[in-house]
């Protein structure tokens, strides 16, 4: 199955980013395809390379980058939501790209399921 993900919450402050990543890993392991991961609202903070969690904690941002590297997963950050929160090209972690909300609507059209993570 072709699956799109929408993440609406920031990392560490909310479970959404963890759940979404775990969902993506599980789906890929079962042979599904992750068509796109779209980051919106505070979810855009998942994409900043400035993130430096304590050493004994998971690195949520690097985890996404690794997913993109290993599976070619398309990680898209909303440009408008990003600009509002100071997330611009210069501080984008590897594997992410910035684009418009049209990419979210397209994910809804092209994937068999769009799964939303957030409140």
């Amino acid at each position: 199955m072709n699956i799109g993900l929408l993440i609406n919450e920031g990392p560490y402050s909310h479970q959404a980013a963890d759940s979404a990543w775990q969902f993506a890993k599980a789906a890929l392991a079962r042979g599904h395809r992750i068509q796109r991961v779209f980051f919106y609202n505070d979810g855009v903070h998942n994409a900043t390379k400035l993130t430096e969690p304590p050493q004994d904690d998971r690195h949520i941002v690097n985890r996404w980058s690794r997913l993109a590297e290993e599976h070619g997963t398309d990680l898209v950050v909303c440009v408008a939501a990003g600009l509002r929160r100071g997330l611009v090209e210069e501080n984008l972690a590897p594997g992410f790209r910035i684009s418009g909300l049209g990419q979210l609507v397209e994910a809804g059209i092209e994937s068999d399921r769009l799964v939303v993570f957030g409140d």
Partner: protein
Amino acid sequence: MTQVAEDIEREAGAEAVVKKFMFVNRKAPHGTIYALEGLEVVLISAAFDQDVSLAFLDDGVYQLLKGQETKAIGVKNFSPTYRALEGYDVEKLYVERESLEARGISEQQLLVAVQVVSAGEMAELMEQQDVIISS
């Protein structure tokens, strides 16, 4: 099938895709950014010629209240945008009756024409959708 025929078929198929998108609004217009950024997605989706509807339930019904005045809290009053939705061919606005009643709001206090539906009917509408984006 030739490559050209395949391309044509794929293109025709891509054009024909019209999905039912429902945007579910559950939060008050102010206090968090969900309502405002949710509305931005609705406006973009209108450009994709999809079958778009909006649902308002829980505190989301406050988004449609007439006479919103945000000057004192120093944030943008985006409520007029709901009136502009019609111009984008977004005309299906569903509001849950139970949510209105629980908050003492009547349909006459809303700033746009809506369809008031029961929680059960709302569940049926959601069941019919291809894509549900909630915030």
